[in-house]
Each structure stands twice: as structure tokens, then as C-alpha cells.
């Protein structure tokens, strides 16, 4: 298959979390994934977009760019915000660690992404933003 991709931007409103994960899932359906694989992708995208909404742009509305590329049987999803950045990425990745327990955050976001996708790379710079790159191989049917 030719290099295929989709790129879209959304304002960081929580109501768009559902659209973002559904749009990525719909695009990935080209590879004929199982229900389980689609659910993994939807959940991982939801975690990354929610992080951008809550933590990237704390009390403001900014833009989140979502891109999804299909390279052979591999799906590469990039979720990028131009918000405050993560102070300590390694700390943020620790299961159950959250800077916002009062908002009932479980601190499981990155743990879910890492468990549901094959590869997760987090690039973040203070006051510049955060980029989460996730890859998952869809098994050929």
C-alpha cells in the first residue's frame, strides 16, 4: 500500500476527545484490524488527547494536531500540543503518578498507552509543547 495518512487539528475542548479517537480508529480501519486492536488504538489516542487537554493547556484552549500514518502494517499516530510541556517525562510515565489527583485523574494515561501500543515516544519541552508518537503493528489477516 502507498504511504497513506490523515492530519487534523482540534481545539483542546474535552468534547473533541471522542471525535479524535473515533476519527483515528476510522482511518485505521483500512488495515482491517480486529475489534481488540481498534479498541487499543482508540484508548491510546484518548489518553494522549486527554493529557493535552488537561495538562498541555491547563486553563486555556489551544490546538492539538493529530496525525496518523500507515506504513505497511504499522500505524503511526502523532499527537502534538503547543502547551506548557511536561517537567519530568519519566516521572509522568510512572503508573499512578498524577499532578492532578483533585480532578480524579488516575495517573494511568501513559501506562495505558504503553500497554496498548507497541511503541510510545514522548518528546516534551517546557513552554513549547508535547509530542507523543505511538506505533502499533496491525496483524495481517
Amino acid at each position: 500500500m502507498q504511504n497513506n495518512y490523515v492530519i487534523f487539528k482540534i481545539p483542546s475542548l474535552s468534547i473533541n476527545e471522542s471525535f479524535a479517537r473515533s476519527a483515528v480508529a476510522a482511518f485505521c480501519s483500512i488495515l482491517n484490524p480486529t475489534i481488540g486492536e481498534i479498541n487499543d488504538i482508540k484508548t491510546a489516542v484518548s489518553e494522549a488527547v486527554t493529557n493535552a487537554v488537561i495538562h498541555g493547556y491547563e486553563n486555556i484552549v489551544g490546538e492539538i494536531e493529530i496525525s496518523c500514518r500507515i506504513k505497511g502494517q504499522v500505524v503511526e499516530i502523532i499527537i502534538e500540543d503547543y502547551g506548557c510541556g511536561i517537567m519530568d517525562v519519566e516521572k509522568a510515565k510512572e503508573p499512578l503518578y498524577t499532578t492532578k489527583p483533585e480532578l480524579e485523574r488516575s495517573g494511568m494515561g501513559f501506562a495505558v498507552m504503553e500497554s496498548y501500543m507497541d511503541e510510545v515516544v514522548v518528546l516534551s519541552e517546557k513552554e513549547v509543547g508535547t509530542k507523543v508518537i505511538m506505533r502499533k503493528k496491525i496483524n495481517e489477516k
Partner: protein
Amino acid sequence: MNLEFIESGQVLTIGLKGELDHHSADESRVMIDEKISKGKFNKIVIDFKNLDFIDSSGIGFVIGRYKAIRKRNGVIEIINANKKVRKILDMSGIGKIIEIK
């Protein structure tokens, strides 16, 4: 997400329909906690039968309701968790504090 409340004695069953994420959790928790604070419930049953999606915000949401009913010495239980829902529940270890049926 739509909520359905069924009150039976001191048991409050909450049926969740649709998608439980950060957005819908924020909307729903206010409504549920108001119900808990007004009633005399000692048990909350969360019914996941019609839930199509859940992420880690949903886990935070369940733990939040667990804390709310615990303050009133009550318990919480999850029923009808399908395979998708079960995966994240198992990963979170929530089963150690909440009964999942």
C-alpha cells in the same frame, strides 16, 4: 454518555450508556454525587452493560465514586463489564478494592 438510575432500598444502581472518558466523567460525577449525598444508600452498583468505551479517566471516575460512598460507609460494585472494559479494569488493579462481577 447517558445515566440511568435505579433505586431499590439502599442500593443505587447506575447504568452507564455510551462512552466514559474525561469529558463525560466530568459531566456525570456531579449528578451522581448529588444523588449519593441526597439519598441514604449503602451500596452503589455501576452497570457497564451498555458502555461502549472507557479509558483511564473512567478508572478515576469509578475510584471517585468509591470514595464518595465510602465516606458514608457504603460499598461499590461493578457489574456486566465486557472484554474491552475488563482489560483496563484489570490493568488498573481496581479489583483489589471494588468487586467486579
